[in-house]
């Protein structure tokens, strides 16, 4: 597997040879920031296009076909349309918080996005409590949503934001428990290290029964975490017009929209990283020829293939099930997912202590 660390180290030594160490690091931070934001936007555009196409396919339609071949330029045109639209200021709103809210959401999303190891040596934020940092960073988004609902001075926004708060804080627990289950198996919280431990088999195979249960719980809770699928009642169109971003227009709305889609990608890519081996190729012990072929495929292709496969799974769920009521959502979390998650954690501890895993 090609180590991108060689490339980044080479860039660092080249830069350090012409300027001071601190200036080189500063310059690298700027370059990485720009690359990160570019990747963020590209992923958002791909996700929106994929959402429209996959949704159409599930509803027996074709989706966008007119703008560009197979409608591929449609989303890019939509982005430019969104950029040119006016940002309307609401008269009786809390002006400062109203303008701040979308940026908090997007900052939380970008920070969580930076934690994901794309390929070997292509990790941006990678340290020994990476999982914890990821959980913390992704939870900041709730504040942005609550602020958006509160500062808009609208009933619909506020109800949407309150629902969202209740839902996201509850489901954070299940996400945490299912990730903890894997942390018990790996005894590390560093994302790159978690991926490295899966060289001889992905955790969903190594951890067998508890890992599969944790994977399912993670998918359900992750879907609820990003306010999508059957859990999209913070923005229930039929009841709340658009939920917490009802009063937003132009690019401020666009930021919420983009953050929602990239959050879905982040949830999927973390699922791919901790359960399906991230950028690690599929290795079957004993079949050396097969393993060599799998190794020839670059790591980032493995990563994106797995991440988009899980995105597709979540879209499948979204376009199949009807929306849940708020009490049903909280019942599902507190009476089903949390107890099952706790028992599952215990099961994983037993599996690890008695070395029952592969």
């Amino acid at each position, binding site marked *: 597997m090609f180590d991108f660390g060689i490339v980044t180290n080479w860039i660092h030594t080249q830069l350090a040879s012409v300027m001071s160490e601190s200036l080189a690091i500063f310059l690298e931070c700027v370059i990485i920031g720009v690359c990160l934001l570019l990747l963020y936007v590209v992923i958002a555009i791909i996700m929106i296009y994929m959402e429209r196409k996959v949704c159409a396919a599930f*509803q027996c*339609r074709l989706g966008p*076909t007119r703008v560009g071949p197979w409608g591929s330029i449609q989303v890019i045109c939509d982005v430019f349309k969104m950029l040119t639209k006016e940002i309307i200021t609401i008269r009786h709103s809390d002006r400062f918080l109203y303008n701040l809210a979308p940026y908090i959401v997007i900052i939380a999303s970008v920070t969580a996005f930076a934690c994901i190891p794309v390929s070997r040596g292509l990790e941006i934020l990678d340290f020994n409590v990476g999982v914890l940092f990821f959980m913390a960073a992704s939870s900041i988004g709730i504040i942005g949503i609550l602020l958006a609902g509160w500062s808009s001075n609208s009933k619909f926004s506020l109800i949407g934001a309150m629902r969202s708060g209740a839902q996201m804080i509850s489901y954070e627990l299940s996400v945490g428990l299912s990730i903890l289950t894997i942390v018990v198996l790996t005894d590390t919280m560093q994302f790159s290290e978690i991926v490295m431990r899966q060289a001889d088999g992905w955790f969903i195979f190594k951890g067998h029964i508890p890992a599969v249960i944790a994977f399912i719980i993670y998918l359900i809770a992750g879907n609820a975490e990003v306010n999508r699928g059957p859990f999209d009642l913070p923005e229930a169109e039929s009841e709340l017009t658009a939920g917490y971003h009802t009063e937003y227009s132009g690019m401020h709305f666009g930021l919420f929209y983009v953050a929602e889609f990239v959050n879905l990608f982040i949830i999927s890519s973390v699922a791919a990283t901790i359960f399906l081996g991230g950028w690690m190729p599929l290795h079957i012990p004993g079949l050396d020829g097969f393993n060599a072929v799998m190794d020839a495929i670059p790591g980032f292709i493995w990563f994106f293939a797995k991440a988009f496969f899980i995105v597709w799974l979540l879209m499948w769920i979204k376009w199949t099930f009807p929306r849940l009521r708020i009490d049903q959502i909280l019942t599902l979390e507190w009476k089903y997912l949390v107890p099952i998650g706790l028992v599952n954690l215990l099961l994983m501890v037993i599996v690890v202590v008695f070395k029952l895993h592969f």
Partner: protein
Amino acid sequence: MVGYIKGIFRGLGSLLTGMKVTFKEFFTRKITEQYPENRAVLKMHDRFCGELVMPDESKCIACGLCQMACPNSTIKITTEPVTDPETGKTRKRLVKYEYDLGSCMFCHLCVNACPHDAIRFSTEFEHAVFTRSKLVKILNKQ
């Protein structure tokens, strides 16, 4: 406790049933018609009501039942009496069958009223014209 565990598996089962349905739908042929491109091969449904036509005007006996059945006065029939030279009986003959597409609501009452199946609805649907008067069509040729 038993009910709780049973409930989980029953719930999962019903969810999987739903997902099976949409999974099949994902791979079925899409029903979207890409209209201007597929004009050559586009086939409308048989029961689609495009406009009223009279395929065989010798079937029409000019009885006027369709005109009376029409709620919008879309159909206007002009007749003339003719005398049969053999029997000497007088009967009506169709002179002009006017059909105003602009006021038709495609209710099929005229087609149902026709005792000889002289009129029916075709699946032709490209009706756009520049003036209203062009929507008034004369169905009989002679």
